[in-house]
């Protein structure tokens, strides 16, 4: 009996031990586990990765564990949260699971490579995580524009949309400057207001509008304007291009700006005219035409101007020959300087004066009559 009892007790103890052992083994190996679906992710610098970690309790006891994050000495910032709050310890009911969030921030200044991390959760075990940084972080400022090249006339305004990205870890204040050619005007606008400096949050961006006004006399050319956004620690450059196509403008007037002239009926009058190219592109083949009263003759010397560079002027002599039949008084003589691109009118008010010849003939007639009367005096009066 004793023997049997002893055997029994040994067997019981064994079975108990085995049972205990088996129980202990199941509770450790399959009773509490830690799980997340994506354990190896690729990320860019500055990105924040978010993991949902599940803690599973298959045993019939409540399992508790301390939670900690092992950053593997990389110094990345990580936070474990549950229900919106940071968490250090977690308990899971039997046959249930709990989820915990891990947010892992890839720093901006990071080199390319694989980074390994570990989440330690006591009885739940450890969860190895791997982050693959596809390219190295910049830790600098970027100034970009989608359309750096624009075309327009001298009198148009060029508007460029630029984006300033702060890829540094701290908030930056940038001074904005533009290297424009002399006489050009560059203005920076943020949100419709003119600015000279702009604040950008770390890893933030700011849209900047650059308004460029060309110089009044800017000739047709391609102009490069450098834009700087800089402060003591960081800076960014961008180059904008403004392509000025020439404007065609023409001025046509008399050399003394007087738009009136006198002419005797049937007589001629020379007028000194000036054709000036006031545009920024060369004018070619400027022809001179006129609109004159009937039977009047207006000729130009020269009749056409072969070429006129911007800012240059050419003298033209207009000869107005009036008709002998024109009435005394004012007439309009229209003159036009015309090139293929542009034309300009000059209206000259021409005052026609009657010829005084007949006036003198009238005086002669009166003198003849008076002489006749004098003859009568001689003949009859003083005998």
């Amino acid at each position, binding site marked *: 009996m004793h023997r049997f009892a002893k055997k029994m007790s040994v067997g019981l103890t064994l079975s108990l031990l085995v049972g205990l052992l088996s129980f202990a083994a199941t509770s450790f190996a399959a009773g509490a586990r830690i799980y997340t679906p994506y354990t190896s992710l690729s990320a860019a610098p500055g990105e924040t990765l978010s993991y949902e970690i599940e803690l599973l309790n298959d045993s019939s006891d409540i399992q508790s564990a301390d939670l900690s994050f092992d950053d593997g000495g990389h110094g990345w910032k990580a936070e474990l949260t549950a229900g919106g709050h940071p968490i250090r310890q977690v308990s899971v009911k039997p046959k249930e699971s709990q989820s915990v969030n891990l947010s892992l921030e890839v720093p901006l200044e990071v080199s390319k490579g694989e980074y390994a991390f570990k989440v330690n959760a006591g009885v739940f075990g450890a969860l190895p995580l791997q982050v693959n940084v596809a390219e190295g972080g910049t830790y600098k400022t970027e100034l970009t524009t989608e359309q750096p090249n624009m075309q327009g006339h001298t009198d148009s305004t060029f508007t460029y949309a630029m984006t300033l990205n702060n890829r540094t870890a701290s908030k930056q204040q940038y001074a904005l400057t533009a290297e424009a050619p002399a006489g050009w005007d560059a203005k920076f606008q943020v949100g419709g207001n003119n600015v000279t400096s702009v604040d950008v949050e770390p890893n933030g961006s700011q849209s900047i509008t650059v308004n460029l006004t060309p110089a009044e006399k800017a000739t047709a050319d391609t102009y490069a304007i450098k834009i700087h956004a800089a402060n003591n620690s960081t800076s960014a450059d961008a180059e904008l291009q403004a392509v000025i196509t020439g404007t065609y403008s023409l001025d046509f007037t008399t050399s003394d700006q007087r738009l009136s002239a006198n002419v005797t009926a049937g007589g001629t009058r020379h007028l000194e005219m000036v054709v000036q190219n006031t545009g920024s592109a060369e004018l070619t083949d400027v022809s001179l035409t006129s*609109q*004159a*009263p*009937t*039977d009047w003759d207006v000729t130009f010397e020269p009749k056409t101007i072969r070429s006129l560079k911007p800012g240059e002027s050419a003298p033209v002599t207009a000869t107005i020959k009036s*008709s002998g*039949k*024109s*009435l*005394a*008084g*004012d*007439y*309009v*003589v*229209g003159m036009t300087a015309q090139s293929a691109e542009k034309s300009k009118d000059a209206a000259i*008010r021409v005052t026609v*004066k*009657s010829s*005084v010849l*007949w*006036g003198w003939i*009238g*005086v002669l*007639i*009166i003198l003849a*009559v*008076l002489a*006749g*009367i004098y003859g*009568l*005096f*001689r003949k*009859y*009066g*003083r*005998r």
Partner: protein
Amino acid sequence: MSAWMAKLRDRAAKSPLRSAPASNGADAAGRRAPSPFWIMVQKEFGDHIRSWRFIILLGIVTLACVGSIYASVTALKNGGGAGGNGQTNAENSFLFLKMFTESDGSLPNFLTFLSFLAPLIGIAIGFDAVNSERNKGTLSRVISQPVHRDDFLNAKFVAGLLLIAVVVFSLGFLVMGMGLFTIGYPPSPEEFWRVVVTLLVTTVYVGLWLNLSLLFSVRFRQAATSALSGIAVWIFFLVFYGMIINLVGNVTIPSDPTDALAVMHQQDWLMLLQRLSPAYLFQEAASTLLLPDVRTLNPFITQDQAYLALNAPLPFGQSLLLVWPQVVAIVAETALSFAASYVAFMRQEIRSRS
């Protein structure tokens, strides 16, 4: 012009430094001072001024002028009268001249009155100048004095012309003065000279009628006959001549009204006929001088001439040049009619009592 010459001769004769005789016979007359010619002129002038005839005439003419000024001022105050409301600045700038040419329609304007009534002054002064003296027997008494025979007629003419000048200029300046008083708008120098030249032309024009009536008074013994012939000529030119021209125009109208050349030709002929009348010449001259907007006196402005022409007033010199032929014609006609009466007078016999 003759008065000026007479004065010049008189002054030359009076000058002691003068050595060579400029005009035959002036020496003998001029040595005696004062010249008998100017004594006769003064006497004639005084006689006219004091005569009832002249006072009545002056009254009529003055009343007519005052009436016409009233009409023109009313028209100007109403805003342009016949000119309408859409007046430009260029037209307004000659506001002062409008005093002489505008009317509200109730009475003719000053210019019309002047061209109609001024000849009457000339006729009234001259119609009995010679024949009444002849009939009274005073002519032979005057001639028996140591004066030149032609001095008698010259004195009549010069005194008449002086009187006419005084009347015309008084009326003209009366209008200007009343204009200043009523519209308070001073004339520009150009306007002033336009008015003065118009008054000068008027004086010469009235001188023409004076010479005509002098001619009649030499020709006809009876004063009534002379006056009637003067008035007949006056009425003929001012009333009937235009009607006759219209009649001629209606008769000679081209058979094809679309023939522009023929129409123009006929109109030019009619215009030439019109211009034979001194009254028409005077009206053209005076109205052109007082209306700076008139650019031509032709009946037609061709399309060629009007093309690109600006509607702007002419300067004074150009207006004068435009009517210079008319002015010359009036002066020449005046001088010729004087010459005619001179010849007629000098060839007449003067008896003590006829």
